[in-house]
């Protein structure tokens, strides 16, 4: 089934994505972000949901529901305010979970 891509984040960071065919969901508050993520993810119309790092950190509980599922893939991206290193931390946590200690990012 053909699905779309969504981006959730602050308006400044994500407005460009709408030009290339990605659905954007601007939001600036933590509660709003959590609600939006739930709605967007449960609508089953998106295969990939990108979150800006700020939103990613605000929605720990909501994200955990989609971890074991094939879609949607919830992926953090750096916003306009700069890179906070969330993506790197996330990958490193996967390595830690699988191997027991982080052997890729420790240098």
């Amino acid at each position, binding site marked *: 089934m053909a699905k779309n891509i969504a981006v959730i984040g602050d308006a400044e960071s994500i407005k460009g994505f709408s030009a*290339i065919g990605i659905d954007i969901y601007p939001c600036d508050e933590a509660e709003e972000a959590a609600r939006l993520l739930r709605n967007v993810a449960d609508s089953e119309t998106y295969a990939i949901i990108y979150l800006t790092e700020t939103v990613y950190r605000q929605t720990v509980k909501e994200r955990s529901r989609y971890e074991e599922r094939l879609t949607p893939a919830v992926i953090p991206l750096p916003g306009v305010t700069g890179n906070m290193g969330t993506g790197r931390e996330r990958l490193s946590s*996967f390595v830690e979970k*699988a191997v027991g200690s982080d052997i890729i990012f420790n240098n």
Partner: protein
Amino acid sequence: MAVMNVNPTRMQLTKLKKQLVTAVRGHKMLKDKRDELMRQFLDLVRETKELREKVEAQLENCNNHFVNASAVMSKEALDASLMSPKQQLNIETTSKNVMSVEIPQFTSSARTSDSGDIFPYGFAFTSFELDDAIVSLNSVLPDLIKLAQYEKSCELMSAEIEKTRRRVNSLEHVMIPRYQETIKYISMKLEENDRSSRTRLMKVKDMLLDKEHNYSGKYGN
């Protein structure tokens, strides 16, 4: 290690021996699965790490372009030019089975066939910085989708590796030793019973012979 709470009978013994064989075979197979998953996972993580660094650098570049664009255009004009997108992306999701882990494969297709057809506005009233921003964002898109696929795969694989590792450990350090101990306990118990019944028989035989021929009276004291 605790011995299981079972009756020391021959039937139990055969049953446990069968279970031990199954457990050992299962342990070997799960261990192989874990090793192979781990190998693939580490390869994937290394690739993902590189891809993420690349994508983040490109996105930063895009954001710079957008900041430039918003500097020369008014916010309203900028928002208005991005408001009605021409493109619509479609993502086809298929799944691939890697060592019993389902990982997603995303293939994207745009609504319009012309890949240059990305600008949702006329060029007359917008700045060239905005064009740059859109072009650079569009060029990140394939990598962005690939990144999503890779990271989701990493996430699913790491969960599966953790599960498999727990199973391997529980078989190796709990189940198999417990079976071995119990088998040993039952066979010792059976041997003990065997010996005790043998001595009893010998004793009985002695007593019978004694009664019949009165050995103890002739030769004993």
